[in-house]
């Protein structure tokens, strides 16, 4: 039977690929920044760790369990953070969240993959889970939509 268009867009090839083979998953030796965030709806938890001794992200990794959206989002986030300054990383989180609310275009080609989440308001919190952990790790930035 044909897959619903909304579902096709939500679970697109890039998201499924990053869910299945996430980049930068696992512990990070010598992390300088770390925070965990959980999704009270489903009990998922993601820990984000950064190595940024000189103020720019040398390495970003994540650990934990989650749905396809939270894992793919964490994976793509760690890729997008490489080389970014901490202020830039927070700006990226702002831009990503703005894109999920339809207020701005996605901040990068990879993160454009989450455009479909807009049609699934109950799942926005999954897509932002790792990003909320990122904010916690950096210790700055305003509250993210915690749905």
């Amino acid at each position, binding site marked *: *039977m044909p*897959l*619903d268009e*909304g*579902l*096709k867009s*939500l*679970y697109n090839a890039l998201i*499924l690929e990053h869910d*299945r083979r996430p980049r930068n998953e696992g512990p990070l030796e010598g992390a300088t920044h770390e925070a965990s965030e959980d999704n009270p*709806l*489903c*009990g*998922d*938890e993601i820990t984000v760790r950064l190595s940024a001794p000189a103020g720019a992200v040398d390495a970003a990794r994540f650990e934990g*369990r*989650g*749905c*396809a*959206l939270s894992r793919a989002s964490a994976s793509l986030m760690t890729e997008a953070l490489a080389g970014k300054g901490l202020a830039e990383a927070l700006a990226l989180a702002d831009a990503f969240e703005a894109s999920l609310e339809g207020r701005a275009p996605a901040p990068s080609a990879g993160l454009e993959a989450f455009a479909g989440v807009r049609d*699934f308001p*109950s*799942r926005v919190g*999954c897509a932002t889970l790792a990003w909320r952990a990122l904010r916690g790790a950096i210790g700055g930035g305003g509250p993210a939509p915690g749905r």
Partner: protein
Amino acid sequence: MAGSGATPPETGASPYDVGALRADFPALDQRVHGRPLVYLDNASTTLKPRAVVEAVRRAFERECANVHRGSHALSAAATELYEGARAKARDFLGAEREREIVFVRGTTEAINLVAQSYGRSSVGPGDEVLVTELEHHSNFVPWKMLCDERGAALRVLPAGEGGELRLDLLPGLLGPTTRVVAVSHVSNALGTVNPVAAIARLAHEAGAVVVVDGAQAAAHGPVDVRALGCDFYAFSAHKAYGPTGAGVLYGREALLERMPPWQGGGDMVLSVSEAKVRYRELPYKFEAGTPNVAGAFGLAAALDYLGGVGPARVAAHEAALLERATRALSALPNVRLFAAPARRAPVVSFEVEGVHPHDVATVLDREGVALRGGHHCAQPLMRRLGVAATCRASFALYNTFDEVDALAAAIGVVTEAFGCRSTKG
């Protein structure tokens, strides 16, 4: 399959005409995402028959008055209906007296009432409260809060692989310091029907009182609190075809008598002065403020409805649904069922291998199938199962075999969206 049009009533296998009965439930007659609604989230809340909707409406359109107060006709009529609902709840629970029936907001409030009134006056430093690993957070957190406040210890009776409580470990967990044993009648996540009577016997031998969370049992027929031998029993109207915001706490009279009031306010007092407050008799001592009058009307209508269909027939139909669901889901190569308790309410917890329950629920929703993907407010149990979440399909008296088949077909769509990630071989 879910997209194939309205679900036709099937005949023969069911002890009643499910198709005709479905017409009693206005909420069933709708489409979601362009598909007929297949509502399999009944353990969260059941849909409401028209009789319940009408009873609630009546509380606002006719007997719209406060209870126990006015000397006018409407108040008298409202009071009569409100107290009539109490009598129905007493009959439903098999309790002896109406004074043992306290109206509350729901199961959660009932358990908090017991924890804070009975618990605070009976549990002290060094004492223990025993809960089980199958508990919903509503029968776990109030006890944890009480223990933390009173310097008592919370003990947990584990569940085994099959989703049944480890009764063999119970004697070792009970002792002279055990004050309360809190257990669910039916597990919300797995459907396990717990051996409450056996647990109550052992608990009483140890000198503990037994608090039963009956939230998941009430929709499946009357309860006999005296046969169960429990001291307290709680349920919510909304999980038994009634409205939200209404529920019942049964308590043994002797215990309720000596418990202090929980909330203070109007209607629960005989006289008030600066020097002294005299409380009313049971059950009003525990019903401060204007109660949920409409909720009580709705609860009465729900219990009447359930009684009208017939608990034995409901049980037979639900058992057939459960059997078909376990068979259909086990037949899918990438589906794993959690637990297979011998005595079981119509609840199936499962996972689609390699796909997170939240994602499964999202896809199923688009197919019109409403179920729950999450931890079901039972995180201690989820830890025992080694997962963060499960998918849970829970059935009610209006579900059809076609809906079970629609669920299985919709899982096929999950497989299509995610690819088969089975490790089952």
